[in-house]
């Protein structure tokens, strides 16, 4: 029988100091993805292996892992797309380990709580009228399925202890800032409180995004620039002060 060899990281941090990779062999199927192999292990070889998955269709963002060292969704990684004779599956390294392949991603919800919420203009005539052109920019960011692969690959989060919220959260802020009826500007918050300055635009996050959101180009850089424009841009400052003077006059 044609099989696939999978090497899976196993560790329960409550009882084991160090983890180990355990090898499994599962039957190869036409068009199979890594999650299919993992489900086979879960069902037939070791039901106690901890594995998080839900929709199996790339829509929910639950089955994030590092496959052959690359942050990926297990459900969207075709086995026949991987090189080598063994597939290595490890948990996301940027998050605390719960057990085996499952990590604690709950800090993301704590961070999302801090981002100022959608605040529409007051007194708008109802129902709201918005043109299709105006929703396109925000729409790209709304594709985010919160798989947190961008957080996992971000070297600022992985290697340094900073107060940087991470790419997912810049995408969130950008999606709200670019909502045509939103009144806030979150870029100052993102730069001052959410540590956006630490990002040195290496674009790793954009590369791993399963929704192909241009995180760096369309979310991070504009959020960085908008803060610069507001706080430090000399031309903008000049225009603002002139406007204020005029208003006084």
């Amino acid at each position, binding site marked *: 029988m044609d099989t696939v060899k999978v090497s899976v990281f196993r560790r329960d941090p409550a009882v084991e100091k160090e983890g180990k990779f355990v090898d499994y062999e599962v039957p190869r199927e036409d068009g199979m993805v890594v999650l299919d192999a993992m489900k086979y292990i879960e069902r037939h070889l070791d039901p106690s292996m901890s594995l998080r998955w839900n929709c199996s269709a790339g829509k929910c963002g639950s089955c994030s892992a590092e496959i052959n060292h690359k942050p990926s969704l297990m459900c969207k990684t075709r086995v026949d797309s991987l090189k080598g004779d063994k597939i290595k599956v490890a948990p996301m390294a940027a998050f605390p380990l719960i057990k085996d392949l499952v990590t604690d991603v709950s800090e993301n919800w704590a961070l999302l709580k801090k981002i100022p919420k959608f605040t529409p203009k007051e007194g708008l005539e109802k129902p*709201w009228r918005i043109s299709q052109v105006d929703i396109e920019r925000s729409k790209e960011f709304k594709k985010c399925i919160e798989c947190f692969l961008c957080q996992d690959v971000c070297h600022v989060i992985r290697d340094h202890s900073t107060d940087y919220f991470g790419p997912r959260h810049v995408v969130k802020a950008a999606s709200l800032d670019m909502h045509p009826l939103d009144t806030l500007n979150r870029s100052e918050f993102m730069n001052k409180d959410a540590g956006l300055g630490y990002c040195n635009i290496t674009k790793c996050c954009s590369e791993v995004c399963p929704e192909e959101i241009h995180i760096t180009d369309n979310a991070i850089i504009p959020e960085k620039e908008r803060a610069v424009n507001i706080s430090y841009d000399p031309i903008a400052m000049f225009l603002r002060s002139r406007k204020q003077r005029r208003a006084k006059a």
Partner: protein
Amino acid sequence: MSEQPIELDEIMNAQFIKHETDVLIIGAGGAGMRAAISAFDSGSSVTLLSKSLLGKAHTVMAEGGIAAALANVDSKDSWETHFADTMEEGVYISNYRMAELLAKEAPDRVRELEEYGALFDRTPEGTIMQRAFGAHTYRRLCHVGDRTGLEIIKTLEDQILHRDIKFFDEMYVTKLLKDGNRVAGAVGLKLNTGEFYLFRSKAVIIATGGCGRIYKVTSNSWESTGDGLGLAYEAGAELMDMEMIQFHPTGMVYPPGVKGLLVTEGVRGEGGILLNSKGERFMQQYSPKKMELDARDIVARANYAEIIAGRGTPHGGVYLDITHKGSDFIKKKLPSMYKQFLDFAGVDITKEKMEVAPTVHYQMGGIKVDPETTATNVPGLFASGEVASGLHGANRLGGNSLADILVFGKRSGDGASSFSKTVSLGNFAESDVMKEIERVKSLTNSNGTNPYDLGASLEENMSDNVGIIRNEEALKKALKAILGLKEDSKKAAVPGGLKYNKGLLQALELPSMLTASEAIVRGALERKESRGAHARSDFPKKNPDMRKNIIYKKGEDGMKLEWRDVPKIPDELKKIIPQEVY
């Protein structure tokens, strides 16, 4: 209760963590989250429990849109037409009041979602865009491309996070607790820590979604194992219309890992056509007027009939073709479908035909609820969303489920919140709590039957014997197998501990999966006619004497079934809907 109630505040017990709340919501999909918002905004403290991570619930899979008679595209649309479409599609066994409330309130719920930050596709005038969908008289579905569910879930998640709502994700509720007749709490296992929780609440809302996972080929995600049906049934709640299972006409057939995965009705709504292997547009024979956009049961049975007749595709489906619409249009209107086929099947749908076949999609039946408040027959217990019944009758219109979770999710939160203001926290016998904890713990040992094997047997049994066309012989076979599996499931056990043990979770899910399956099969045997999604080859006609609902209830010695009259429709509503034809 088995013994004298004990004030739980006095119990110092390290076996479980206590949590108190006014309203406890089990399930954090669209219905649960919408209920949490309204219960909180009505002044109650709210605790929201989710089996998966927050924002991953099955709602995220919804694609096509929300049905709401905004009349933005077709100005003739009205709540009356939406009401009539819903009643007709439900083949006259829906609860008229639920259909009326849905049709009247869906537009407000959609606009409210927009005010929460959701961004729908727009018309040239800047209003919310609406698309055509099967068996809707007018273009009615408000949508965000083909990922409407994701937009709903993320928008509601945002609202939850910015309110003082307590949420526990990866929490599996194993049992509801009662104080006398009233449901007043629950026992839960926190999957990611292995800790037990005792929840005390004044009201409980079940919003756990459907049970599609009892079938092998399904569009449903991992979570949809009918948990809430089992919990409610064991607590004495009535279930209704359980025999009504919707097969979606178009699920993926290849590759095997995604067999059953949904291909949105939006593809047909945007102009996609169905073809058999001979290249014939076969819907011309089955439904010359409505063609591909007829009701889901009709299109699903047509697809099935073509495949059975040997006019199927290499992977055992039929073709769905939208290539004539052009690459730009497809990528704009159906971006997820484009990606889904490219990523999983290596098929470019702008150039090639898709292969599709019917897949289990939705349970019309579920917990019987009061239309106004979503209260069940058990005091303190409420239910909304797919787990509840009444609205969809014998068949559901596409887009009505997303309207359902918003309209009745809100009503659930309001209803439970009002109820919670009339009662105080209940008390339980400590022994009942401990007994449940011991039961769960006893499932972790190395000497039992693998629960996944039992689950797989059930899935195969349901797919083989309780499929799109049913008959007495196969149904009896199915029932026998289910009763056997019920016995076997008592021996289910898995090695490992309590923390993130998915095998243990499958063992815990089995009883609810079996309750749902048993009800479906018993009801399907009982309903000796063909109505809506329920088709019997041995009783192919609709029977006027069976324009009734079947109620399922736990009795002393097993499941009891009872025929009950459909609520009488008031004359002013009756004249809106077309006369039923036999």
